[in-house]
């Protein structure tokens, strides 16, 4: 960590609360602009409900298309929250401080958007509640089928969503109290209610810290299970040879961490630029996050190589035709090359250089590339495999996404950004208490002639 300016509590309060208490005009403009895309997405959904799933590009055999790709993508992005918040909190890493709440909020909205996708893609979405207990006809003993991964999915996702929301909410209490003490009128009443009587005494802080550690530890198994369960939507199927691999669960999880942490870095760069938070989201934070990304990316790449190589391992159809489709036929060959470049071969070598890691613009663009690559990765897993399910070549198919699907996919990005920005309008997206604690814990050690930056460590 390099030298940085000392900030007082007044500075911190003023800077981090500025988006809430003195919202700039362009903020509302941005929200309205995003709102157009959200409205378009909702309109597309209404169109699909009205006319039927025929408006999508789906057919036989490609019964799952862009919407499932998007679903898996957003569940993946949602894994950043826990990765950064929980694991770094448990490891006592100082550089987590600005990133934790932004990551958790990204999780909440990414997961919420992902949870909408089953509604989009179902044939009769008004009956979706039949897949959750108590199910269709529990009076006569017909509950949801627990053997189905589509029953595991809502269980896992709702658990994750609830626990992350609780996590955010609980750790937000001290900051809501700060807002309560600085606002007036209607907002003051709302913040009062939400702050649950926070007074900031020793007992309450002690409970906060304990709760933070406990929730971090408990949410880790949830986080691993969610994307594993989503991966088992695909891996348990024997009919689609390209999906029937045992590696899917950890492969998807580490891919999720890869794309999620990249998403958080993108958001942090945007927040730093929008709200001029150079003192809070500093270069060393990007440096540390980029080094984490290198480790995660290399791990992910290993899993990808194994998964890909195992496709060739049994040397049998239809897997060989599937890989030939992915590698040699348009548009999958272009998608594959783009995916390989954007998810690994361009970003990771760049991140090996300190100058790149500390350059916020480069970090922003490389992490956007990573997420383009990871969306393509899900696309390359889902759609070509359905096009080449078994050796019966009469049933090999193809797929073209429809405009409605494209609007829904694009609109989902707007939905997530709108959610995160709306949160930033009402609650501080960098935890005030964390920033202040960071200032207190920061210190220096003299080693020879040099003052090395250091931090107090509570054990």
């Amino acid at each position, binding site marked *: 960590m390099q030298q940085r300016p000392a900030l007082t509590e007044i500075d911190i309060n003023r800077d981090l609360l500025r988006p809430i208490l003195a919202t700039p005009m362009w903020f509302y403009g941005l929200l309205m602009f995003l709102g157009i895309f959200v409205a378009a997405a909702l309109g597309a959904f209404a169109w699909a409900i009205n006319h039927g799933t025929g408006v999508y590009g789906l057919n036989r055999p490609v019964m799952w298309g862009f919407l499932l790709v998007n679903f898996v993508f957003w569940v993946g992005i949602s894994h950043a929250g826990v990765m950064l918040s929980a694991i770094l909190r448990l490891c006592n890493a100082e550089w987590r401080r600005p990133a934790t709440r932004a990551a958790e909020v990204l999780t909440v909205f990414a997961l919420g958007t992902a949870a909408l996708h089953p509604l989009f893609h179902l044939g009769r979405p008004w009956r979706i509640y039949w897949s959750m207990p108590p199910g269709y006809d529990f009076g006569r003993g017909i509950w949801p089928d627990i053997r189905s991964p589509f029953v595991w999915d809502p269980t896992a996702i709702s658990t994750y969503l609830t626990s992350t929301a609780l996590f955010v909410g609980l750790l937000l209490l001290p900051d809501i109290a700060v807002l309560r003490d600085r606002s007036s009128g209607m907002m003051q009443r709302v913040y009062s209610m939400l702050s649950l009587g926070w007074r900031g005494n020793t007992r309450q802080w002690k409970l906060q*810290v304990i709760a933070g550690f406990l929730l971090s530890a408990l949410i880790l198994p949830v986080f691993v299970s969610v994307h594993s369960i989503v991966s*088992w939507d695909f891996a*348990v199927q024997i009919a689609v040879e390209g999906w029937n691999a045992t590696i899917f669960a950890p492969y998807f999880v580490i891919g999720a961490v890869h794309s999620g942490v990249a998403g958080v870095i993108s958001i942090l760069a945007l927040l730093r630029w929008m709200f001029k938070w150079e003192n809070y989201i500093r270069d060393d934070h990007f440096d540390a996050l980029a080094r984490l990304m290198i480790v995660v990316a290399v791990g992910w790449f290993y899993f990808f190589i194994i998964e890909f190589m195992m496709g060739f391992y049994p*040397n049998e159809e239809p897997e060989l035709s599937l890989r030939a489709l992915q590698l040699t036929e348009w548009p999958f060959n272009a998608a594959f090359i783009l995916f390989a470049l954007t998810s690994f071969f361009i970003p990771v070598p760049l991140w090996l250089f300190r100058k790149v890691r500390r350059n916020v613009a480069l970090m922003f663009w490389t992490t956007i590339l990573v997420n383009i690559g990871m969306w393509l990765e899900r696309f390359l897993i889902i759609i070509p495999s359905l096009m080449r399910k078994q050796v019966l070549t009469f049933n090999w198919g193809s797929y073209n996404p429809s405009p409605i699907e494209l609007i829904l996919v694009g609109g989902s990005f707007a939905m997530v950004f709108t959610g995160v920005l709306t949160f930033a309008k009402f609650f501080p997206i960098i935890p005030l208490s964390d920033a202040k604690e960071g200032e207190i814990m920061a210190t220096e050690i003299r*080693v020879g002639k040099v003052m090395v930056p*250091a931090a107090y460590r509570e054990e």
Partner: protein
Amino acid sequence: MHNGGPHGHHVDLLERTSAEVNKEVLGWTTRTSSKYWLLVLALAAVTVLGVIGFIMKAGDGGLDSHLPWGYLAAGLAFVLTTSLSAPLIAIAPRLAKAHWTRPISRIAELWSVAGLLVLLIMIPLLITLPSAADRNTMWFYNKIAEGWPPGAPYLYIVLTLVFLVINGFGLLWASAIPDFAAARENATGWRKTWYTRLSLGWVGTKRQWRALRAGLGVLGALYFMFLVFAHTVVSFDFAQSLVPGQRDSIFPTWQALGGIQAALATVIVTAFIVRLAGGFKDYININQFWSLAKLMLASSLLWMYFWWSGFIVLWYGKTPLQQNLLDLMWFGPYLTIFIMTILLSFAAPLLLLMWNGVRKSILGPTIVAVLILAGAFLDKIRIYVSSYSIEDVNAHALDHVPAGVTPESADIMILMGVVSGSILLFTLALKFVPIINMWEVREGMLLQEIRPLKKLPLKVIAKPE
């Protein structure tokens, strides 16, 4: 976290001068007692027993078929998983600039000397390994072109393991250079010759330090790559490719993860013993055991998660091949061993390490580590003996599950010899290479201190760029 609460607040930081560190560590390195030689003798005897067992078996069945050699393969895999994975505990935290590994990093790196044993065992295993023709291997032999890639799988197994062992030795040597330089000052006789030679003229200039750190970084990263690749290759060529039709993509990654778990356990047990035998209670204290225990808990949970990911896909599919694989690997003749593995590698670590008191102690993680090592041992037996029991490796798919292979006395002797052989190599090496990384520990003392923060003494940790 508990600010001066009833749990107390002890901060353990080593307080020594540099000269004291050198004296204590080098003193133990150069001093050999009769107890030590007794231990060496005992280990050597068991190792020789293992060699005798091998000769018995080779003479009896010969080296024609791979079928009798499952237990030897399990031994190779066990050493790879425990000893050769141990250096990771030195490499990874060094990358993260963590301070708690400083006293135990040499213990972790020193285990790479067991690589010599791995190379030795590799030879008969390669002789008995069936050729890659007509069966699925990760080298796609004959699938790309006739006779291509040449030398598969033997050449590539040799290259992987040889490079891994060389890298391990290189890492050990590099990290020991400053310590050898410190040792050469007061050494005599053969020690002085070798310490001088191996310290490569180290005097500790800025340039040399920078080169050393860069070298450690590169060697560490390479070692990690080679280790993961070695786990992949060994689990493929000595297990998965011997079972016709098996296509378990999580298997190599699961073995690599098992290696991380067993590496932590190996380092904990070794640190416990070294701490007592060498009187290093101040160097290796609660911090090391506590941090290792947290990692061990995490890796045990991950171990179970990886196993479950494999199981759910194979079990859900219910194709005849998948059902045969489930039988062969887990629920058939090796069911008892499998249950014991689940208990030792997952249930016991979870149920014990989930308690704060157990994690934050010295004996607790050590006991769990022993259980994990036992679990890893049984697990390797289960995997490799079952894979080696398939007669027709050229079939298209596994169509029946052979009966379990019970160990002969020669097999037991071999396994005992393998374990004691790796411990023997370590024991011999630790009287030459200082068992505690003196320069890293001294650096750690510079970068950590205890200071009061609002009346509470806290540790201050520096993270230099």
